[in-house]
């Protein structure tokens, strides 16, 4: 496996950055952004993105690439690419290892557990600490009691689908829930089939904390309704709390 990182920084800046943080893989200097432009990766929305954050555009915002990465196979063919909608966001290492490189995640540093009618949930995070604008994932392993199912969206009228929410807090950004494809479930006597989850499955919710808020506690709510073929529990909410330490941005 080879790794390269490309930015528009002059060699001297990259030299200092690499020395300070012990980086031994190549940091390539595209001063003037010629390569970034030639590859079609110039961030053409930089000014809008900067203004979105309430920042006045500066010269240094010109020439930046979109924030993202390419995975090449041994022949040099692009086999995956992942880019962020904002120049500020980037994934935590664990997320790249897992989703891009398919390397198994290390055991979670800390986890939370909860259970209620028909469902057990274990929750953990990609990393024990966040840095501002770094994308992490909340992971949930769910175990639906045998003989029961929980509903995925869209649900039949009057039923509650599985949803996962991190309680709103200053600077919280949340991406769509990543979940397996639900299975069709037919109810005897009804023509309609519903989408459900059964047994054990995992979901993840990417998020970032876009402020330097220090250590935080994430309050997670899992809302669902567990049913058998003939009966349902009332809708329920599982509450889990996960501690997350805060670290500063890494920069030269």
């Amino acid at each position, binding site marked *: *496996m*080879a*790794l*390269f*990182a*490309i*930015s*528009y*920084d002059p*060699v001297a*800046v*990259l*030299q*200092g*950055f*690499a020395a300070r943080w012990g*980086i031994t893989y*190549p*940091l*390539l*200097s*595209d001063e003037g952004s010629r*390569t*970034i432009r*030639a*590859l*079609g*990766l110039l*961030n053409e*929305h930089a000014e*809008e*993105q900067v203004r*979105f*954050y*309430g920042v006045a555009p500066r010269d*240094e915002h010109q020439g*930046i*690439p*979109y*924030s*993202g*990465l*390419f*995975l*090449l196979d*041994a*022949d*040099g*063919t*692009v*086999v995956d*690419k992942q*880019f962020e*909608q*904002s120049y500020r966001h*980037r994934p935590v290492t664990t997320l790249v290892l897992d989703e*891009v*490189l398919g390397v198994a995640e290390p055991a979670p540093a800390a986890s939370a557990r909860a259970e209620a009618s028909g469902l057990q949930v274990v929750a953990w995070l990609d990393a024990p600490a966040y840095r501002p604008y770094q994308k992490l994932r909340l992971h949930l392993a769910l175990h639906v009691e045998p003989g029961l199912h929980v509903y995925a969206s869209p649900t039949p009228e009057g039923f509650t689908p599985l949803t996962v929410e991190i309680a709103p807090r200053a600077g919280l950004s949340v991406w769509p829930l990543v979940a397996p494809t639900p299975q069709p479930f037919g109810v005897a006597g009804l023509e309609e089939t519903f989408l459900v989850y059964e047994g054990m499955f995992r979901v993840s919710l990417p998020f970032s904390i876009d402020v330097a808020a220090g250590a935080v506690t994430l309050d997670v709510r899992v809302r669902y309704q567990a049913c058998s073929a003939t009966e349902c529990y009332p809708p329920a909410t599982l509450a889990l709390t996960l501690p997350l330490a805060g670290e500063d941005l890494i*920069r*030269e």
Partner: protein
Amino acid sequence: MNDRTLPAIDFSTVGPAVGAPFPAVRLPDQHGRVVDLHAARAGRRTLIVFFRSARW
């Protein structure tokens, strides 16, 4: 932060496409040595990260 939203960008059409060869890149590294990316990766799988800056 204000109440505007970020522009939505479709990255499937931005930069080299999945399935296409990654173009030749020759740039100096942090030691000032010019690196030919494809020669340096020497037939290995490769991750190329684009980041905004080491300074800010």
